[in-house]
């Protein structure tokens, strides 16, 4: 099995090469000539060696800062992209970047690669640590101006170094990806480099937050590093993620597809669910990443951050009393509820364009980061399907791994029926969300705003899955199913269906059946929800809960 898996992934890696190789050749023919004379000059300087060590240090640093040279920097800018160093500077607080391995060079000697003019101090990645709003973060930023940002052994080694250190001190890792793929000249050395990074991505997972921001191409095997991190963000129009490029797709499956359609930001944020969010351009992406970073704890040993907050924790939200329509078939926007409740209406939504029938994202309550999960009645009635279950499950697991309390708003009519869902494995995928909520030991607060039907009721952070505080709004209906379906079963053959339905509604379409059994702790006025959640979070701040010892759980993947 393992062998098969390796084989398969190797073949897809290979597919990646072809794209990369072409790309690299294209890049060379553009700028090679203009750069070469300059490099000749440098070579001569090193050769005569009249220079002092200090002068050589300075020269090397200068060369490292220039990456692939001014011509390639200009080309990068022309594509609407920033250079690796510009990105790091913008991402981090001013003057806080501490760079590592500026003198590291690639070690390849084949194809004339060992010639001095083919070596760039620092190689094709910039690594180091710095601060975002005063908090420590490790960063690597791939430099497309050096060999198209391709991954050499040295490149991988630099990344691994900062990842190892990030784990030692407990600080997140941010990767800014802009790479054509493997360094073909290095062959297996490059493949080994990828694997070294993959291994660390896996070992670091759940220890410190890992964030990938795709700012250029990321293809072939390289895509698995972002895929293993906690969050993948993209830049619109300039970034791509795919296993094999359009040319290979054409030759294998005969599909005509553009890069953008195959692996652009729109595809991955709306169709595949590979990326969590996309931003307009490099500058906006990096500024948004700074904001996003403020929601995260530095490691799994740190509590969820608490920020200074001007929004009163006891603020009533009168608009919530009327947000749920009287007709239980009518939709409303769950975001209205979320925006009303969280601090300063500030909600950082994750995957806003994918599986929109569930809403997930980060916000703050009285300054403290919380993860929010909510069914979205506006889309597909807020039902749970394969995509929304997976989206929700992954988010819940991230929150649980990093001590972020989870607040769940429930308005779910059930799981989506149909062959598409059954054949797609809704049973297996729906189980992921159930699994995630059940195993989570962070504070869990649940508010049933309207429907909580069937198995979906159980799944959505119910009392039975160790919900700490479970509230129902007066509009809540907790039942096995809606009135129509239930009546057909309970009162089969009864003549007056309408009367039977009314009886059912009277009995079940209200919060009492759950409340009398203690399955919800209280029925609350919607406008008081914010106040209560803030108070409960304060109580739950010292919650300690451990699951039975195990090597690891076996989530139904």
């Amino acid at each position: 099995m393992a062998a098969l898996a390796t084989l398969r992934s190797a073949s897809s890696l290979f597919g990646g090469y072809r794209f990369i190789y072409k790309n690299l050749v294209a890049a060379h023919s553009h700028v090679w000539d203009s750069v070469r004379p300059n490099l000749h000059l440098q070579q001569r300087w090193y050769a005569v060696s009249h220079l002092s060590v200090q002068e050589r240090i300075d020269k090397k640093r200068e060369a490292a800062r220039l990456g692939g040279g001014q011509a390639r920097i200009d080309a990068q800018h022309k594509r609407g992209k920033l250079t690796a160093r510009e990105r790091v500077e913008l991402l981090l607080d001013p003057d806080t970047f501490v760079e590592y391995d500026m003198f590291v060079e690639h070690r390849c000697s084949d194809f004339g690669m060992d010639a001095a003019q083919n070596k760039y101090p620092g190689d094709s990645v910039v690594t180091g640590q710095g601060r975002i709003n005063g908090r420590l973060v490790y960063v690597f930023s791939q430099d497309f101006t050096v060999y198209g940002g391709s991954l050499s052994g040295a490149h991988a080694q630099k990344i691994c170094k900062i990842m190892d250190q990030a784990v030692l001190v407990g600080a997140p890792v941010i990767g800014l990806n802009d790479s054509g793929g493997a360094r073909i000249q290095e062959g297996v050395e490059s493949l080994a480099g990828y694997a070294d990074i993959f291994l660390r991505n896996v070992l670091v997972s759940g220890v410190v937050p890992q964030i990938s921001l795709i700012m250029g191409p990321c293809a072939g095997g390289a895509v698995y590093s972002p895929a293993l991190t906690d969050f993948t963000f993209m830049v619109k129009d300039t970034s791509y993620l795919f296993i094999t490029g359009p040319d290979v797709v054409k030759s294998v499956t005969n599909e005509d597809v553009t890069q953008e359609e195959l692996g652009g930001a729109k595809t991955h944020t709306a169709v595949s669910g590979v990326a969590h969010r996309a931003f307009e351009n490099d500058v906006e992406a990096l500024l948004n990443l700074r904001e996003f970073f403020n929601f995260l704890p530095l490691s799994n040993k740190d509590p969820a951050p608490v920020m200074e907050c001007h929004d009163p924790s006891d603020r009533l939200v009168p608009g919530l009393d009327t947000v749920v329509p009287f007709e239980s078939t009518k939709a409303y926007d769950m975001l209205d509820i979320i925006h009303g409740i969280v601090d300063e209406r500030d909600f950082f939504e994750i995957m806003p364009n994918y599986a929109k029938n569930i809403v997930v994202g980060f916000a703050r309550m009285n300054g403290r980061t919380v993860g929010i999960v909510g069914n979205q009645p506006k889309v597909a009635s807020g039902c749970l399907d394969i995509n929304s279950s997976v989206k929700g499950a992954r988010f819940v697991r991230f929150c649980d791994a990093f001590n972020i309390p989870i607040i769940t708003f429930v308005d779910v009519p059930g799981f989506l029926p149909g062959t598409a869902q059954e054949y797609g494995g809704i049973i297996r995928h729906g189980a992921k969300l159930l699994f995630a909520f059940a195993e989570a030991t962070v504070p869990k607060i649940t508010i049933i705003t309207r429907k909580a039907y069937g198995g979906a009721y159980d799944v959505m952070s119910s009392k039975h899955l160790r919900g700490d505080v479970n509230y129902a709004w007066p509009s809540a209906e907790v039942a096995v199913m809606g009135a129509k379906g239930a009546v057909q079963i309970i009162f089969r053959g009864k003549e007056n269906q309408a009367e039977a339905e009314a009886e059912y509604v009277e009995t079940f379409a209200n919060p009492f059946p759950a409340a009398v059994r203690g399955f919800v702790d209280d029925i609350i006025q919607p406008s008081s929800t914010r106040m209560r959640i803030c108070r409960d979070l304060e109580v739950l701040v010292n919650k300690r809960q451990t699951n039975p010892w195990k090597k690891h759980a076996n989530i139904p993947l």
Partner: protein
Amino acid sequence: MAAPRVTSGLQRVLLMLKNVHFKSGYHIVASRKQYSTVYDPNEKTFEKILIANRGEIACRIIKTCKKMGIKTVAVHSDVDSSAVHVKMADEAVCVGPAPTSKSYLNMDAIMEAIRKTRAEAVHPGYGFLSENKEFAKRLAAEGVTFIGPDTHAIQAMGDKIESKLIAKNAKVNTIPGFDGVVKDTDQAISIAREIGYPVMIKASAGGGGKGMRIAWNDEETREGFRFSSQEAASSFGDDRLLIEKFIDNPRHIEIQVLADKHGNALWLNERECSIQRRNQKVIEEAPSTFLDPNTRKQMGEQAVSLAKAVKYSSAGTVEFLVDSQRNFYFLEMNTRLQVEHPITECITGLDLVQEMIRIAKGYKLHLKQADIPIKGWAIESRVYAEDPYKSFGLPSIGRLSQYIEPLNLTNVRVDSGIKEGSDISIYYDPMISKLVTYGSTRADALQQMVEALDNYVIRGVTHNISLLREILVHPRFVKGDISTKFLPEVYPDGFKGHQLSDNGRRELLATAACLYVALQLRSRRFLGNQRVSTSHKEQNRWELSLNLDKDTHVVTVFSTGSLFTVELDGKRLNVTSEWNLASALLPVTIDGTQRTMQCLSRDASGNVSLQYLGTVFKIQVLNRKAADLNKHMPEKVPEDSGSILRSPMPGSVVAVSVKPGDMVSEGQEICVIEAMKMQNSMTAARTAKVKTVHCKAGDTVAEGDILIELGMD
């Protein structure tokens, strides 16, 4: 409860009471409002009143009923079941689904509600059934009191043709025009030619500007006739039209009258309602700057004589057009409580709803003409859910995500029927509230209104506060130099929001820059042990680049605590504020000048929307480094707006007059959208072939939905 009960705002009310007929033993109910003064609890009126209306006017009526100890019944459509008026009333009855014809105009259901709740009387508010004689008749037949004039007065004044004749006979000045119903387009044109252009075509049963068009030539008469009869049919179920001379550049001034069932009638001074768009009022004031005491008296007396001529009882309004020579012509009489009645209440100290209820019960007026004061000045702004940038206001819909009325200010009255979380839907009038301010002088009232608009928080729908505020500070308005043409004259190219002065721009930019710095400083303030670096000292000098209207401004901010010093354009400004980043209001002091701004949105990309002097400005604030790098960012190509026709407002498609492949010329009508009972003609932006049609008659469209795509020429 026999002793006078005194609550907040007392002093002001006592002042106002000086001229009001006052007997000991009366209660003083002094809320913050400028009405609700005196009533006699021993004067029995009704046990229970049903209010056949919704929104702010229903709430307004319920308030007075509560004061008078009368129980109230609200009626509502299903979508209004959690509306404010329903919550305020003692009882509520659902009378049908959302469309007004099936609920608020559904007489059968309302009659049923009256029977069920045993209401003794009905207050109809304005609009809906307020001037429906049929309704009044049916009430009378069941022995229920209609709080309004008698059926014959409604009938006589409701018909524009009849009312004009009666007015003529009562020696009221009238406008030259055709006294009769116009049959068809051809007759309309011949009549129009006879009277002489310009002419006004209006619905015989109309009011409120609906079914009303002005025509300057035959072509416009033809078109106006068509539109007016359609609108009249859909609004009033009566497509009869009439035509009269259109008085160019007039003022619209109306006289409030109050008459009892014993032949007594009073005039309660005038309201100046000249600021209008599409014949609908926007800002009203009382008194008018234009009337001298003599004209006022003449108008008042003519209004009273008309009221007496039709044996009018209850509150009513006689509308006049006044030309620049202070000649006034009778326009129409509204046999109901007017939208803008609060300003009359402010300057007279009367509660008109209370008076209407008393009169309906048969009590005599307890005031004499000499008792009617003009105390101070009152202004009313109609705050609408509208986009004022589109023909001075096209309806917008949405949910009021945040809503705070400026009631913390003195001398402010807000009549509204919505609250935070309410929906402004396509089914009803898009009015959010009537914002009324009061002052001892006009200048005071104006100043207070400006302040109130700045402090009014409305989020979730587009609103017209920018337009209201710009009108209020416009030199012509301040001078009182206005007419019904004010808006098109002052903004010939349409309203474009506040135009920044150099100083204003500096204030705005400085505030945006400081807000950015305050946010940046706050984003480092982690509480508890968050392993924040201590080796770095807090930044206190910020070099920023601000983009406003495609211009870039370089700004430096120096921060010491909450005081920021801003350098821009070679000038230094001191900006202080609490920088409460959660508050909807952003009060700042810039070099000693206090401004209340509002931050509508801000994001991590540095974009902020600030409401400054009523208008929302979008500014992008970047630090120097980000701004430098931003120049490398690719321009995103905006959509070609000439080829795509989008719905400017939510509504329903009445007609589509083209199909794919048709050639259309610039300005040609492509389709008609109806929203809030107004029909709007959508025209082609250029000459081209129609590529695709995305809508069909009967569709409901949202704002921004694509209606039609045009191909290349």
